[in-house]
């Protein structure tokens, strides 16, 4: 898994190219992800990268930007 793949996944989930243009954008504040989107995100992460993130480990403040998500996933590989 590289960062590019994470960004591609997020572009598909959020349906917005802004993720590539600005990987520090706050996905929740900008309304790109909502509660249901969060769940979809965890499912996609598992499907694409075989990384299982328990929902109870998902802290919004730490998983709020594309760069942070990529960093968190790199830690778990």
């Amino acid at each position: 898994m590289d960062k590019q793949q994470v960004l591609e996944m997020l572009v598909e989930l959020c349906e917005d190219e802004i993720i590539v243009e600005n990987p520090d954008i706050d996905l929740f504040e900008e309304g790109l992800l909502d509660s249901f989107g969060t769940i979809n995100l965890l499912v996609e992460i598992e499907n694409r990268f075989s990384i299982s993130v328990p929902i109870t480990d998902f802290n919004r403040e730490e998983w709020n930007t594309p760069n942070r998500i990529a960093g968190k996933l790199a830690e778990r590989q």
Partner: protein
Amino acid sequence: MLRILAAIERVATQQPQRTAYQTHNASLTYGELWHLSDCVADYMMKLNLRRQQPIVVYGHMSPLQIVAFLGAVKAGHPYVPVDSSTPTERLQLILEASKAGLLCTTEPLYMLTNIPVMAVSDMLESSSSETPPSTAWVQNEEIHYIIYTSGSTGQPKGVQITANNLAHFVTWMQEHFPLQKDGVFLNQAPYSFDLSVMDLYPALVGGHTLYAITQQEIANPKALFDSLATSNTRVWTSTPSFAKMCLMNKEWNQELMPALDTFLFCGEVLPLAVSNELMQRFPQATIFNLYGPTETTVAVSYVEVTKELVERFEQLPIAPITDPSVSLVEDGEIVISGPTVSAGYLGAPELTAKAFPTVAGNRIYQTGDMGYEQDGYLFFSGRKDFQVKLHGYRLEIEEIEKQISNLPPVSSCVVIPVYKEKEIISLSAYLVLREPLKDSAFKTTKQLKGLLSEYLPAYMIPKTFKYMDALPLNPNGKVDRKGLAVMETV
């Protein structure tokens, strides 16, 4: 017939220390609920409002919300619940349309209104705590609550539920579901959504404890599951979407919630996959799929979801065809009759007359839902109009389109539901702007969503905005919704 307030009073007198309502950080006993709602009612009565003048209650899951609801009906007024996620422009519309006499709040609200605004906590302080007479209570054909739902004209519609409607509904719930046994009832739906009535009144009338989870918890999965684990919930009421979201957590199962033995689902189609997964994870629980629109008091029919039913059909039925309150008319529309058919829309006699005709001496409600019969059951097959359900919320596509088209930069707009495996997962808006895009599409979208959020709640705002030079037309010269919809299937 059951009298809702008298039944709650009985619990409050006999078991005043029992917990009536709880959130992760607040709780209320039956004794407190009864006394505080008396204080609120006393305060309201001294305002000399017109009998039955609506009272808007603004806020989110908290003990004082329930206190305000009961206080209003004790003083003879219907309450209009408005969740604090509601944009101020929409709240303003509701205040005007309902001709409310008072706006009660349990959360800070900064807006100018033409009517008195009072925090429920301040009402409690300034009350003389006289007990209002039970003769003042809302009764029989008087209106108990009014819930605003999305309206295709661009204006929300206020559905008026009478004391009798509610009493019949609660009695029906008690007769058909295992609600008598002691236990905690989960309250997931915000109060502006009538699904909340399904847990609220059966729990209070039965002397049970309501456990309310807040939107804040739902937005933070860790807090949500901590809360669910400590709630000791026995009866679970939610939209199927909410349960589907919870199922994504592999640890959400009978072990986490050992007391859970009843699932009540309503508000949208319950997918088979969700039922199957729930049966495996919660072997002790019985699942019920309920059906009914706000206009006929929450729900009117149900099926118990059994293994046999799940294996037999590709979609769950919503009622046995023997159910006396739901039936199909010639064109396949589902119509509802019986004592829970509401008093109609507040201040909209024409809309009411159209949707609630009298047939052979009986008032019925034409749901706009289409259905079909198969093997002794009734199934839902879609809508006659552009109403959709997204995550359990009822939306009128036309209302969203009107609000977007009203934004100054927008010339025209259509909104298309996005389908994935036959379920609506989001909305897409196709817009034509008055002037060509100046900024990036993202910036424009952000700006338009910002403007829109003053008029529409977040769940009604389309997820994606796509800009076009002109909307595509079909050969009849109408906007080609079908063509756009094909593009939006993922």
